[in-house]
């Protein structure tokens, strides 16, 4: 089930639903000046991430968090306004991370 259909099925406001990491094994990071690389033991895949997706993924790694919270916190971290344009950008990143099976909604919420 995709993230969007899970939101629709649950009847929860999409941006308030929580995101968590897929699996419990910790990610392996290679953090460099611009682009970063992350290894996800759960899928065995390696991903090349630019700064903003890295920031989003590291935030989800800390604890369960909603898209709205991610938008707000990353806007503050980057010193930009948490406006529609920003939220559109972050939502796209969140969708990409979910499609890569790095993050998901908590299993109980989906069920």
């Amino acid at each position, binding site marked *: 089930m995709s993230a969007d259909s899970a939101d629709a099925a649950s009847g929860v406001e999409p941006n308030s639903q929580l995101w968590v990491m897929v699996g419990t094994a910790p990610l392996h990071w290679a953090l460099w*000046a611009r682009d970063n*690389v992350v290894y996800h033991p759960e899928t*065995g895949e390696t991903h090349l991430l630019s700064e903003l997706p890295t920031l989003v993924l590291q935030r989800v790694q800390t604890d369960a968090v909603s898209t709205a919270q991610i938008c707000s916190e990353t806007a503050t971290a980057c010193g930009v306004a948490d406006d529609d344009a920003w939220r559109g950008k972050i939502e796209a990143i969140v969708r990409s991370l979910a499609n890569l099976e790095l993050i998901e909604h908590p299993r109980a919420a989906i069920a």
Partner: protein
Amino acid sequence: MRQTPAADHAARRRSPSRAIYRLGPFTVHIETPLREVRRLIAWCYGDAWIDSADPIVHFHVRIERGPLHRRVLAPQAIFRADTETPFAPFPQDHAFPLLEWGLNWCIATRAHQYLMLHAGVLERDGQALILPALPGSGKSTLTAALSLSGWRLLSDEFGLLDLRTGMLQPLPRAIPLKNASIDVIRSFGRGAADIGPTFPKTRKGDVAHLRPPAASRRRQHELARPAWIVFPRYIAGSPLRLGALPPSVAFTRLSQNAFNYRLLGAAGFEALRDLIERCRCWSADFGDLDSMLRALERLPPAQT
């Protein structure tokens, strides 16, 4: 005619059909009835390491004659590794390249105690240069030329990265020069005498092997510290273009280049990340061997 045990032993020593060789970290038992293959093995790798004891052997390989009905008109050679026959038969006069490719197959499919990069690797002053590349990029030509220019040859094919120490393990073997590269290295001057016979029209074109320098073979157990990673690409007529590579790009290219990165999982990721962080990384397009060699001689020192 029956031979005494002593006479039989002497005959085997003159031209043993089976022998054990040390190739870098691997002990290989090679068996073949083909005299020309045995002669080329000895020419490339020197005397057998042991031919009577029973040490632990990593790979048992055989080059056998093909089926009887082919032996008159189009004789064939078959490569076997233990119980496997990974390739279709080759023409018998391509038996030595078949053996070399077979050994590559054994290593690539089994030596997972290393992160295996598909790369030429050389060392100078204790610092190793890694040349990862796709086929046709000029890697073997460049590796051969460097090995004839004062660099120690670690390998033309495998960058064997020790997962525990992050050091590179030598595997000095014959360098298969292909097509125009054969004459390029022959005319290079210093290596002409070390190029073996040309095998025309193999599956990879004309192939001739440059045997590994004796000094590299003598130091085949001496590990080397990675210092530089250069992704070479030969483009006919191109001026030299040497560009620094961001670590993330170097990481991505190397992960796609390694034989067993995905198989090693997190251990492979950690090893590759540490390697990238210790090395300076470049891409290098070149159309002229001499200018490329000069550029590699001037590489700045590795990161500390």
